[in-house]
C-alpha cells in the first residue's frame, strides 16, 4: 500500500513550531531547575551525578519506584481487561450507566482520597474494626494486621484504583477497533476462545494497552502525592519533594531530578521499541459489524457483579471522602457517630474555598482547550506525517509525564522571578498564565496519546481514498479523520480536564496567594492544617470537586448520548 506523502513544508514547519514551543515551555524551565545539579564551584561537573550512582539508599529507592510502577501497571491491566472485554463483546441492561460509572474512580481528589484510604486500611481503621465486629479479629490477642504494610501495598492499591480507568478506556478503544473478522477467522479455523484472545486479540490491542500502560507506568513512577500521603517515603519523588522543601537544598536534589527524568525517558523509549509498535494494517473499522452478544439475566447479573464489585472497591476512597466531609465525629468506629452539614456549608460560605473551585474551573478548562489544539496537531504529525523531527516531537510531548510537576513548577518560578521580564505573570503577581501553561504542559501527553491511539487504528486507506477522490488535505482531515477519532478527542479532553482539576504539584508551588488557589491547593492547605476539622473541610471541598467532575462526565453523556458509551469506539 502506497503511503500518502505529505506536503513537506507544512508538517515540517508545524513540527518545528511545536518543538520550539515545547522547548520554551518545558525544556527551558526544566533546564533551569536541573542546571544546579551539574554545577559545582561555578563550573560544570558530574560530581553530584556520580554521588547518586554510588549511593545505595538512592539506588534502592529508584528500584522501589520501578517495582511500584510495574506492579501498579500490571494490577491495572488485570482489573481493567475483564470489564473492557465484557464491554466490547457483550450487551446487557444498564451497560450505559456502568460505562460512565467506571470512569468515576478518576475523579478522586488528591490528599483526601489517600487520607480516607488510610482511615480504611490502617491498623485500627475501618476494615479491621469490621473484622473485629464480626469476630474474625481479636486485638487483645494479636496485633491487628497492617494492610498498608510499609506503604508499598497501600500505594499500589490506591494508584491502581485511581488509574485503572485509563487502562479500561484504552483497552476498550483498542478492542472496539479490532476487526472482528480476524477473531472469526481464528474461531473458524478451530481456535478456542482463550487461544483466540491470546493469539489474535491481545496482539491486536497491544498499541492500546501500551498507550494506557505507558501513562500508568510513568505516572506511578513519578507520583508524589500518593506515596507522600500514604507514608511510603522510600521512592525518589518523595525524596526530591522533601529535599526541595528544605531550607537548604543540596545540588544533589537537582541531579536526582535528572536521573529520574532520564530513567523515565529511557524506559519509555525502550518500551516503545519493544512493545509499542503500531500493528499497521491489522486493525480496521467497518469491514464487519462488531460482534456483540446480548446477555441473558444470569449473564447480566455476572457482568453487573464484575463491574459493580470493581466499582465498589474503587469507590471506597470516594465514599470515605464523603463520609469525612459530613462527619461530626469519627473515632474508633466503623461509621461516623455524628453527622453534620457544617463542613459542606462552610466551604460555600467561605470566600477562599468557593474561589478555589472557580479558579480550578478556569485553569482546567482553558488548559484543556490548549491541550486539544496542540495535542491533536502533535498526534497527527507523529502518527501520520513523515517529516523530519517527529521522533523528537514524540519524545517531547511525552516528557511532561517524566518530569515531576514540582520541578517544572520550580522552573516556572525561576523564569518569572522578580527582576525578570516575565515577573508580571509570576506566582506573586498574576499566575493565571503560568498555571494554565503548567497544567497544559503536564497533561499534553494524555491528548497526544489518546489521539495517537485513535489515529493508529484508523486505516490510512480511508484517507487515501478521500484524497484519490479529489478531497484536499484539510477536507480529508475534517470530513474523514476527525469524525473517526472524534471520540478519542472527546475522551482525551474529558480526561485532561479531570486531571487538570486534580493537578497537585504545580498548584502547590505556583499558586502562592490565596485568591489564586485552585481546589487542590486549598484541599492541601486544609488537609495539612492540623486543625480540628481541617480534614473534614478538605473532604467537604473534595466532595464539591467530585460533584463537579462527576457532572462533567454526566453532561458529556447527555451531549453525546449513546456515543459516550462508545467513547473510544469511534
Amino acid at each position, binding site marked *: 500500500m502506497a503511503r500518502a506523502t505529505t506536503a513537506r513544508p507544512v508538517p515540517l514547519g508545524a513540527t518545528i513550531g511545536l518543538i520550539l514551543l515545547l522547548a520554551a515551555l518545558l525544556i527551558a524551565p526544566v533546564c533551569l531547575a536541573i542546571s544546579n545539579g551539574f554545577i559545582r564551584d561555578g563550573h560544570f561537573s558530574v560530581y553530584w551525578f556520580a554521588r547518586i550512582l554510588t549511593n545505595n539508599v538512592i539506588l534502592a529507592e529508584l528500584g522501589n519506584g520501578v517495582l511500584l510502577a510495574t506492579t501498579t501497571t500490571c494490577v491495572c491491566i488485570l482489573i481493567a481487561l475483564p470489564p473492557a472485554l465484557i464491554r466490547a463483546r457483550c450487551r446487557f441492561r444498564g451497560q450505559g450507566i456502568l460505562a460512565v460509572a467506571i470512569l468515576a474512580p478518576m475523579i478522586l481528589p488528591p490528599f483526601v482520597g489517600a487520607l480516607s484510604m488510610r482511615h480504611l486500611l490502617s491498623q485500627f481503621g475501618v476494615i479491621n474494626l469490621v473484622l473485629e465486629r464480626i469476630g474474625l479479629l481479636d486485638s487483645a490477642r494479636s496485633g491487628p494486621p497492617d494492610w498498608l504494610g510499609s506503604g508499598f501495598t497501600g500505594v499500589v492499591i490506591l494508584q491502581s484504583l485511581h488509574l485503572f480507568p485509563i487502562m479500561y478506556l484504552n483497552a476498550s478503544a483498542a478492542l472496539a477497533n479490532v476487526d472482528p473478522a480476524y477473531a472469526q477467522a481464528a474461531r473458524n479455523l478451530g481456535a478456542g476462545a482463550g487461544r483466540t484472545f491470546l493469539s489474535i486479540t491481545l496482539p491486536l490491542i497491544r498499541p492500546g494497552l501500551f498507550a494506557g500502560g505507558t501513562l500508568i507506568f510513568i505516572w506511578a513512577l513519578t507520583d508524589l502525592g500518593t506515596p507522600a500521603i500514604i507514608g511510603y517515603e522510600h521512592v525518589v519523588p518523595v525524596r526530591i519533594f522533601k529535599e526541595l522543601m528544605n531550607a537548604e537544598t543540596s545540588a544533589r536534589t537537582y541531579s536526582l531530578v535528572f536521573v529520574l527524568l532520564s530513567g523515565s525517558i529511557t524506559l519509555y523509549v525502550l518500551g516503545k521499541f519493544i512493545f509499542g509498535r503500531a500493528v499497521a494494517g491489522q486493525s480496521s473499522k467497518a469491514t464487519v459489524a462488531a460482534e456483540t452478544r446480548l446477555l441473558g439475566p444470569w449473564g447480566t447479573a455476572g457482568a453487573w457483579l464484575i463491574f459493580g464489585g470493581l466499582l465498589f472497591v474503587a469507590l471506597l476512597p470516594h465514599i470515605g471522602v464523603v463520609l469525612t466531609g459530613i462527619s461530626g465525629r469519627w473515632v474508633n468506629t466503623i461509621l461516623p457517630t455524628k453527622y453534620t452539614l457544617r463542613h459542606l456549608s462552610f466551604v460555600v460560605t467561605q470566600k477562599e474555598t*468557593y474561589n478555589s473551585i472557580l479558579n480550578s474551573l478556569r485553569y482546567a478548562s482553558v488548559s484543556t482547550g490548549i491541550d486539544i489544539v496542540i495535542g491533536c496537531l502533535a498526534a497527527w504529525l507523529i502518527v501520520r506525517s513523515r517529516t523530519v523531527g517527529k521522533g523528537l516531537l514524540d519524545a517531547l510531548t511525552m516528557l511532561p509525564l517524566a518530569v515531576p510537576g514540582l520541578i517544572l513548577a520550580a522552573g516556572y518560578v525561576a523564569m518569572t522571578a522578580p527582576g525578570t521580564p516575565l515577573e508580571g505573570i509570576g506566582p506573586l503577581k498574576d499566575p493565571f498564565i503560568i498555571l494554565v501553561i503548567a497544567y497544559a504542559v503536564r497533561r499534553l501527553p494524555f491528548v497526544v496519546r489518546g489521539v495517537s491511539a485513535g489515529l493508529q487504528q484508523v486505516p490510512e486507506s480511508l484517507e487515501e481514498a478521500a484524497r484519490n477522490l479529489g478531497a484536499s488535505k484539510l477536507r480529508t482531515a475534517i470530513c474523514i479523520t476527525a469524525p473517526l477519532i472524534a471520540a478519542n478527542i472527546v475522551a482525551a479532553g474529558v480526561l485532561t480536564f479531570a486531571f487538570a482539576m486534580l493537578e497537585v504539584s504545580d498548584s502547590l508551588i505556583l499558586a502562592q496567594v490565596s485568591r489564586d488557589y485552585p481546589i487542590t491547593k486549598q484541599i492541601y492547605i486544609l488537609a495539612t492544617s492540623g486543625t480540628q476539622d481541617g480534614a473534614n473541610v478538605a473532604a467537604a471541598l473534595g466532595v464539591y470537586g467530585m460533584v463537579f467532575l462527576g457532572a462533567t462526565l454526566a453532561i458529556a453523556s447527555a451531549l453525546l448520548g449513546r456515543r459516550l458509551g462508545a467513547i473510544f469506539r469511534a
Partner: protein
Amino acid sequence: MKAKLTNKLWLVAAAAILVGCGQKGATGPQEYSSARRETVQREVQAKWGKSLDELETVTLVAISPHNENIQNEFTWAFSLHHAKQYGQTVHIEWRTVGGGSSSIVRFLRNVYARSESCGIDLLWGGGEFHFQKLAAQGLLDPMELSGDVLAEVPAVFGGLEMYDEQLRWCGSAVSGFGFIYNVTMLSRCGIDPPRKWEDLSRPELAGYLALADPTQSGSAAAAYEMIVQSAPTWPEGWAKLLAILANANRFTDSAGAAANAPVLGEALVATAIDFYGATRVAEAPEDLLYVSPPGQTAFSPDPIAILKNPPNRTLAQRFVDFVMSRRGQALWAVRPGEPDGPVRSPLGRQPIRRDVYEHYAGKFSPWIVNPYRQGSELKLDTEMRKVRFGPLKLLVRAAGIDNRNALRAARDKLIETNFEPRRVRQFNRLPKNVATRGEIARVAQLLKDPTAAERILTDWTTFFRDKYDRISR
C-alpha cells in the same frame, strides 16, 4: 463535538459561579456577620460617619505556617479592630509556598538574595530558631512594643528566649510538647498508657507510634531535642530517642498530621504540640488523651516579626500591636462565643502574656493551661539546642527515616535477644563525628555547606544501615 464539550464545561463553570454568587459578600460565618459585625458597624458609623462597607480597604501581606483557622480568626478580628480605630478595613493577603516554616525561610532567603524587599510585611509562626537565624542575617526589621506588653512577657522562660532583645521578633503564643494517644484502642490491645517520653520506646508499642519528620517539621525537631535533653547526657538522650524512633510506623511531614494518626486509627500514640493534641482530644474526649510529660517538656515561643523593607510598615506594626494586645491574645485561648473569643472554632493555644490568664480566667477552652503557673520543669540548655539543631535533624533522618525498615529489624533483634548488652551498645553507638559536644559543633558548621552536608548525611545513612544489618544478623 468539541464545541459542545467546551459549552458543557462553561455550563459547569456557570453553575459554580451561581453557587458562589449566592454567597458573595460573606466575610465569615453567619453568626460572625450577624452579631459582632453589627456592633462594630454601629461604632464605626458613630466614629467615622460611614458604614463598614464604605470604608477604604488597605492590604497587609503576611506569610505564615499557621493554619487557616488562625489566619481567618485574626483577619476578621483585626479588620474590625482597625476599622474602629483607624477608619479603614484590612484585607490580609496570606502567602504560602507549599510547605511549613522551613519552606518559608528558604523562600524568604531566596527572594532577599535577589532584592531588597520581598513584598511581604509580616512573618508569623514557626520555631524561634528560624527567627533567630533570619534576624542574624538582617532580614527582620525591629518593631516597637510598649512597656505594658513587655512587662507581661518574660524575656526568658525555661531557658528559652521569648523575644529578641532588639525586638526583631517577639513570641506571640507559647507551645508545649507531649503525646496524644488513643485510650480505647490501647486498652483494647492491653497496653498501659505512656506517661513519660521513655514509655514511647516500650517494645509493646513497636509499630504503633506516629512521629513527624524533623527535616520537614520544625516543631518535631524541637520535640526531639527535648527528648534528648530529658536524659542526663547526650549519648543517653540519643539512645532514648533512637529507641522511640524504632517504634515508629510512619514519619509524617507535619506535626499536625502526626497528631491525626491516633484519631484515624493509624497509630495508638503520636508526638504532638499541645494545641494539636488538645484540639484532637476535644473532638473525642472519651477516646483520646493528650499528655505533657511532667518535667520533660519546655514551652517555646511562636514568634511574629516584621520583615525587612515591608510594603506597609505602619500596618504591619498595628497588626503586631493587635496580636500582642490583651484582645489579640484572648483569641488564642478564649472559647468561641465569648465576647473576645474566636468566631468559628477554638484556636487552642497558650497566650504569651501572663496577665491574659487572670484577665480572662474562666473563659478559656478547657485544655488551656497557664504555663507560668505550671512552670517549665525542664530547663533547656539553649546553647546546645542551637548547636545541635541541624545535626540532630539529619541524624534522625539517617538513623530513623532513611533506614526505617533496617532500624525496625535491628530493634526486633534486640527484643528477641532480650536486649543483649553487646548488641544494645552497638545499637546505641553514634557516628564518630557527633560523639561529643565539640564534634557536634564542628559538624554543625560543616552542615552549612550543602556539599559537605550531603556527604555527611550519606555517610551517616551508610553507618546506621551497616550497623543495623550487623545487629540483625
